[in-house]
């Protein structure tokens, strides 16, 4: 009897504890069912709404396309005319890379004149304008032409003597590896900054200083970019070696007034380079540029040279990353040496020398060091020197008479590079370009690029 009553009590206890749970879950399930129903209804109504809207839009589109609204139609629909809807912009996807280099300087000089004694220089090689000025603004367009060729054009908009000029700095085509030339061989034709020394093939905006060193100013008028053809070949050696050469029209300084018959000038070069460990690398090169001219005007068209010019150059470049990471710290050492042999006649109309036979050599060199001590900060120093040729008596007192003075410049610079696309530089020059000439110059410049900016060479 007792066990039975205990059993009943236990059963009641269990059922009261268990049944409420079941009861609760029944209610829960019903509630869940209700929720799902509500959700389903809500979503279904939204979907039907969206479907309605979509069919409306489709209808209005087809209406607009088929029937340009005439008469008192709502303004929005009538403005959709066939001319606008059918404007077809073709081939945008193959547009070239476009980049612009924006460049301005503030310069202050302590001497009024900046002529380089003993040398006749073209207008690019002269020192820039004093005060605030916008420098060459470069526009570049480049793209692959097809599977075999690549093309690029760089125009520089600059002001010289109060006139705004558009100079064609580069306009060339070159072969791509798909052309079928041996691996490492490239043919480039048109107008370009040809391979000569270290700086010539780089655009000035990429330089480590605000101006080019003396040898570039007097021997190349800042850069040699004649019209011509150049072949270069990276040799299949374990270390880096490259050779090449070109033929040119002979119109650009140090040549000029090319008549067009025959080849005005030719060039040749050879380079080798390599690594020293993981953190150092170097490259040296030897170059020759030779040609003749029937009239090379310089010094604001006052000096005229006719004859042969042979220019030989050598360059060396070395970079070292002290911490192993060139992003954080880097040291760059660079130097070039030029030797020029001229054989022809000079005339200085200002000094009324008449046409004077001239056959002599001149040379010049520069050495620079740049130290990047923080990712965005660099300092640099450069020394540059020329030795002017000895002049015959009939040229005494002319622009070519240096009175025995060898022009030289000392330069210090500091620059801040926020990114690969912007740089601001402060530079101090001490230029001793002629007897008694001591020019202290301060230059402040910005160089910024927008748009596409190709990878830089070494």
């Amino acid at each position, binding site marked *: 009897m007792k066990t039975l009553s205990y059993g009943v009590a236990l059963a009641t206890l269990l059922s009261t504890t268990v049944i409420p749970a079941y009861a609760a879950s029944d209610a829960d399930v019903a509630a869940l069912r209700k929720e799902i129903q509500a959700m389903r209804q809500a979503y279904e109504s939204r979907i039907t709404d969206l479907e309605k809207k979509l069919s409306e839009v489709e209808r209005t589109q087809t209406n607009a396309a088929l029937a340009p609204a005439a008469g008192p139609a709502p303004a929005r629909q009538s403005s959709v005319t066939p001319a606008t809807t059918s404007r077809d912009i073709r081939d945008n996807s193959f547009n070239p890379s476009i980049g612009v280099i924006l460049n301005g300087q503030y310069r202050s000089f302590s001497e009024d004149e900046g002529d380089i004694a003993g040398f006749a220089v073209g207008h690019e090689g002269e020192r820039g304008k004093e005060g605030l000025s916008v420098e060459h603004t470069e526009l570049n367009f480049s793209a692959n032409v097809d599977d075999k060729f*690549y093309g690029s054009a760089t125009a520089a908009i600059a002001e010289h003597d109060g006139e705004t000029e558009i100079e064609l700095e580069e306009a060339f085509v070159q072969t*791509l*590896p*798909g052309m*079928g030339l*041996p*691996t*490492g*061989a*490239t043919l480039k034709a048109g107008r370009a900054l040809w391979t000569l020394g270290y700086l010539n093939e780089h655009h000035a905006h990429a330089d480590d200083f605000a101006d080019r060193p003396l040898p570039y100013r007097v021997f190349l008028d800042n850069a040699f970019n004649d019209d011509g053809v150049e072949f270069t*070949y*990276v*040799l*299949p*050696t*374990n*270390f*880096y*070696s*490259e*050779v090449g050469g070109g033929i040119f029209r002979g119109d650009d300084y140090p040549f000029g007034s090319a008549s067009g018959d025959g080849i005005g000038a030719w060039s040749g070069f050879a*380079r*080798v*380079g*390599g*690594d020293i460990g*993981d953190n150092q*690398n*170097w*490259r040296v090169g030897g170059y020759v540029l030779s040609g003749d001219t029937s009239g090379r005007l310089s010094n604001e068209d006052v000096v005229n040279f006719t004859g042969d010019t042979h220019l030989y150059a050598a360059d060396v470049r070395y*970079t070292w*990353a002290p*911490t*192993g*990471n*060139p*992003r*954080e710290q880097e040291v760059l050492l660079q130097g070039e040496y030029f030797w020029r042999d001229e054989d022809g006649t000079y005339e200085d109309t200002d000094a009324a020398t008449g046409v004077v036979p001239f056959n002599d050599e001149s040379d010049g060199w520069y050495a620079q060091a740049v130290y990047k001590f*923080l*990712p*965005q900060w660099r300092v640099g120093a450069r020394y540059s020197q020329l030795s002017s040729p000895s002049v015959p008596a009939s040229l005494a007192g002319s622009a070519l008479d240096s009175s025995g003075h060898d022009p030289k410049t000392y330069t210090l610079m500091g620059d801040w590079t*926020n*990114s*690969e*696309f912007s740089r601001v530089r402060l530079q101090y020059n001490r230029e001793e370009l002629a007897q008694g000439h001591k020019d202290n110059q301060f230059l402040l410049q910005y160089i910024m690029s*927008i748009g596409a900016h*190709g*990878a*830089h*060479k*070494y």
Partner: protein
Amino acid sequence: MRNFVFLLFALIAFPVTALAEVNVFACEPEWGALAKEVGGEKVMVKIATTAQQDPHHIRAKPSLLAAMRKADLVICSGAGLEVGWLPVLLQKSGSPQVQTGQPGNLMAADYITRLEVPVTVDRSEGDIHPEGNPHVHLNPHNVALVAAELVKRLASVDGANSTVYQSRYADFSKRWDAATKRWEKDAARLRGARFIAHHKSFTYLLNWLGMVEAGTLEAKPGIPPTTSHLEALLEQQRKNPARAILRTPYESKDASQWLSEKTGVPAIVLPYTIGDDNQSSNLFTLFDRTIVLLTETSRGAH
């Protein structure tokens, strides 16, 4: 002059003996290591950068031109990571088969799901990559996808040895999958953990293990950390500190250490790629070491 020209042609025409090895040019050490895993003795790998160097800022130096000249296969991260130097090398001394789009040109970022693809592209956002974040190798699933493509490329470049590559890949794949599972298990407790990184170099690592990037020391990618941004991070860290501040071996320690000192959050250097320390000499040990460093830090933080 004539002799010079003759010599030039003799050099060009010199028969290039069919070398036994495929020359692989790897932009970064991680891809070089992958090429060695899949290629074994059949490949000769030249690695263009070291673990100490920031791959964004490499010069197209002479030794790289010479190495590209010989390359049969180029393997790089892609997504614009090497845009400052690789195009010069390819154009100047690359053979037709290693040019972009050809079988000998393998860009890892093309074979994985890229993260952080920007909606708008403007340089005021810093050095952003229009294709997305290019530091793709720190997710072993990505490495597996690239390896699968690499074996196909090696087979197309060097068909004679394709069975060797297939068997090496099968072996690597088995070991890699097993290792990946082990890493995921070991790093399970890192889910939801918050980390600060110097640059967005660890996005794929954090994404793989379910960790959260609590911010970067650089306010904008590619622009070195600024005081104002670090102060803002400091404020944020005081309220909700991260587990650690991560950086690669090539990133400067100054900003990491400053923030670490102010907040007490540890600043650690992850190996990031192969070659920085003795413990990360191949892809397996790279991830082993990375997981160990991350989990140790987390343990220490509690």
